[in-house]
Every structure is written in structure tokens, then in C-alpha cells.
């Protein structure tokens, strides 16, 4: 199973993370960390009204955290706050339910993270990006 885990798609996102970097004047800047792992992540989000126009991330973490973040940025770019919320729920369920694919959406590259759901200690690595994004939405709502 770890063989699938570190498959081509995951490794590609780890090696060439999409949307890596920072943004000039983000609508929301939000940081997340996993103190127990030492993983750290910063997200810059630019919203146009309700819609996520731009997203960039910086951070350090394991391959799983990096790949999950990279995939998330690709998946969420252009989505509305409500859609993002749905995706966060969908991803959490995906991790919780042993990696069963949801029938209401195409997971895209995220499918490659399926195996992680079977490694409870690593799930939190994959979740970091998503819980940080959740926090970002909360900050957006306060604006």
C-alpha cells in the first residue's frame, strides 16, 4: 500500500508543487501547523467577491503534506466559498472513510491520496492544508 502511497502523481506534486510561493496583497493570509509533526504551512488567498481567484502556499512538511497542499490549491482555485467548504468536508470524509471515492465529484489528482486514509498517523499530514483552508474561510467571513 505505501507503494501506491508514494505513486507517480503524489511524487510529482511533491517534486513540483503547484502554486508554490506567496502573493502580494492577499485577501486572507493564514498559517497552519502540525506541532506534533513539525509541519508548517502558510496560505495566501485572493478572493474576488465569493470566489477564490488566486492561491499560493509556502511551508515545510513531509511529501504527503506537500502533495496534498499542492493538489488542494489546484482543485480549489476558482471555486466559491461554499464549494470550498463542500470540498473540505468531502476531503475529510475521504480520509475518514478509508479512501472511498465520493460519488458526487471527481477527485482528480486527490485520488492519489487514497492510500493515506489507511495510515491514521499520516492522515493529519494530508489534512493540514484543508484545515488551514478552513481557518482561512473563517477569516474571510469575518472581513
Amino acid at each position, binding site marked *: *500500500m505505501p507503494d501506491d*502511497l508514494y505513486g507517480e502523481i503524489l511524487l510529482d506534486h*511533491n517534486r513540483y508543487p503547484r502554486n508554490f510561493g506567496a502573493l502580494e496583497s492577499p485577501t486572507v493570509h493564514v498559517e497552519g501547523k502540525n506541532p506534533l509533526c*513539525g509541519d*508548517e504551512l502558510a496560505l495566501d488567498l485572493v478572493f474576488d467577491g465569493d470566489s477564490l481567484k488566486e492561491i499560493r502556499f509556502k511551508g515545510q512538511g*513531509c511529501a*504527503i503534506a*506537500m502533495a496534498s497542499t499542492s493538489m488542494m490549491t489546484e482543485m480549489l482555485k476558482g471555486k466559491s466559498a461554499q464549494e470550498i467548504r463542500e470540498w473540505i468536508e468531502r476531503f475529510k470524509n475521504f480520509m475518514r472513510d478509508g479512501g472511498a471515492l465520493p460519488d458526487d465529484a471527481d477527485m482528480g489528482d486527490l485520488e492519489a491520496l487514497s492510500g493515506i486514509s489507511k*495510515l491514521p498517523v*499520516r492522515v493529519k499530514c494530508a489534512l493540514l492544508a484543508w484545515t488551514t483552508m478552513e481557518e482561512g474561510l473563517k477569516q474571510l467571513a469575518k472581513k
Partner: protein
Amino acid sequence: MKNAMPKNSTQTKAEKLREDFPILKTMVRGTPLVYLDSAATSQRPSQVLAAYCLFCQSHNANVHRGIHSLGEQATDRYEAARERVASFIGAPSKHTVIFTRGTTESINLVCYSYANKFLKRGDIIVLTPMEHHANLVPWQLVANITGAKLRYWPMKPDGTLDMSATNDILKPPVKMVALTHISNVLGTINPVTEITAAAHAIGAKVLIDGAQAVPHISVNVSEIGCDFYAFSGHKMCGPTGIGVLWGREELLEEMDPFMTGGEMIQEVFLDHSTWNEIPYKFEPGTPPIGEAVSLGAAVNYLSDVGMDWIEKHDHKLAAYALERLSSEEGIEIYGPLNGERGALISFNVEGIHPHDLATLLDRDGIAVRAGHHCAQPLMRQLGVPATARASFYLYNLHEEIDQLMEGIHRAKEVLAYAR
């Protein structure tokens, strides 16, 4: 590679000892388990488990209070375990051996019952930067409660304490020195006897966290001369749920109880109570009876194997692992490189997060630990979020270190230089 490894004197015996540990025959994802995580918890030999089962099936009863035969048998065995532990660590009397749940409770007991009572504003508590959270966080609370301050002993780049700073560190108003005997991250073996003498010279008390020492080297608390010594059963071939606090008798007498309840009292009135004698004053309620008996059996097992032999075997494994890891490209090793270290090595492989390394090694059945090892301040000082750690014990073989190296090679193929 496996066949190229020369056997040596301790190897043959270790191969034999492995028979006592059926879990080592476990298959992980189709390959045999290579257990390199004994610093987290050791495996338990059949003899120790058998002692536990025998107790449960033939002598199980509550201790101290029972007049019936079973109660007597249980009490005898519980107290005999205390006696075995006392002599194993060179305690002057069995009454100075307190059974706790583990190192963590032992240290908390000293913090609540000794430090909170006797330390005061302005006093200084000396710690080292390599302490496990168990010997760090409780002292932060003592500092909060008493107004005492924490002072950290400086560490040299090789992960040993800077002993040239002794006079700067150990001077009034230092009242307490709490340090680990062997670091669970660096493998550093601290000069506890020397530090104890220096601390006593200025009237400070010394607590030693022996969680990584008692399983691996022969420890004599009387020779060290310290005031408190703490360790856990589960890292020394014993069960979880039990540990030991050894304390100097005069201090234990002066201390207030920590937890209260049955067995630790002498007389209870509606509004107040008086305390039982040591060690019972510190053992409220039903103690971990089967666990104590089982710890006694673990001590017997270690004694039969021989602490000298264990130390030698550990040393050979650590030296060999050090040699293999340091001759490999892109590996950073933490802690002393001269071989003067405990049976564990923390390291990082360039470009591979230790969590990914641990997951990939697990694919090959190799169990190493990855993370902060309950030593976050030390991680910060080392400038890394986490490390991988391979730790060894009496049942490990040189071949297993070869397997670790092969696993690291495969992990590199998958991940290294990825970014």
C-alpha cells in the same frame, strides 16, 4: 551484504535471545519485522509474560489488606518485586523504591510532593536542552507555582553537555538539577555522578531521568549519589503501567503525599488524615500489582542475560550503525559521533522528511521512530522539525542494521533529492 557481516561474540547470544521474543517473528506486509524502536518501548520476553500469567492465574488478589492466603501470596510477590528492583539499582533499602505508572508519573510525583513544597521564589532549577518532555514540562509547572526559575545547561555541538560551564551553572540559588541519564534523541550519556557531586556541593538536589539508562547500562543509585531516580518498566523488557521512583529516604520522609486514597493513609477522620510510612505513603489505592510482579521478572531476565553483556552488545550495534550511517552520503547524524553513546541514533536523510522515511521503511518491515521524540526544544536547537531514530536492544542483530541501510537506499530511490 548480509553474508558479508562478520559474526561476533555478542551476535551469537543475541540470536539465541531472540527465541524469547516471539513477536520478533512477526511478518509486516510479508517481510519479517525489524524492530528498531526499543527506545520507545521494548519487547517483552516470554519469561516475563509467563510470570505475569502465573501471577494472574495462581496468586491474584489485592495486596497489603488481605488476611487470606491469596492476599498474602500476592503481597509477598509484590514486595519481592520491590526488593528485586531495589537490589537491581543499588538502592540502600526496599522502602525507597516507589512503584508508579512510569517515568512520567515518577517525575511528576517529585514535582508535586518535593519541589512544590520545598522550592520557592528565586530558586533555580537546572535542566538540560536534551530533556524529554517528561522531565521538562513538569518543571515548567513547578516554576509557575513556586516562582522558581529554569536554567538550561549549555550543550556543545556534538550533543554533550558543556562541562566547562559547570561553575557558571551550578551556583546558588540553584536548588534542583533535573537531567536525563541517557538522551532518548542524541544518545548522549551524561556524567551524572560528576554533576550530582557538583550539585550537592552547593546544596542542590538531583533528579535523574533514567528511562533510557536502566534498560541498557548497569545503574547504581547509591554510587551515583543522586536524590531521585526515575524509570519505566516498558522500556526494560517489562510491562506498561509500571515504573519506579527511587528516592533518598530522608527526602521521601519529608515529602507530602502526591495522590491520596486507600493504603497510603494511617488514620482517616471526617476532616483530616495521617499518612502511612514510605513507600506506601506514595502508593495510594490498588497498585499495579501484576505489573510490579512482571517488572520483577524483567529485572530477573535482564540480570540473567547480564547488564554487562547488554551494554557491550548495545555498544557494538550502535557503533556499527554509526559507521554505516556516517559512511552514507546525505545523512546527518545527531549526537556524539565518538561512539560514547546509548543504543540509539537519530538522523535525517537529505531531502526526505523523516515521516516519509519511516513510512517507506515500514514497507520493508523496518520499524523506526520519526518525529520530535518528545523533545521539541531540542529539535528547535538542532534546527530540524523532526528526526528519524533507530534504537537497539539486546535482541537486535547487525543484519538488522544492514536491512535498515538497504531500506534507506530504497527510500532514497523513491524520494530523495525530490525537491
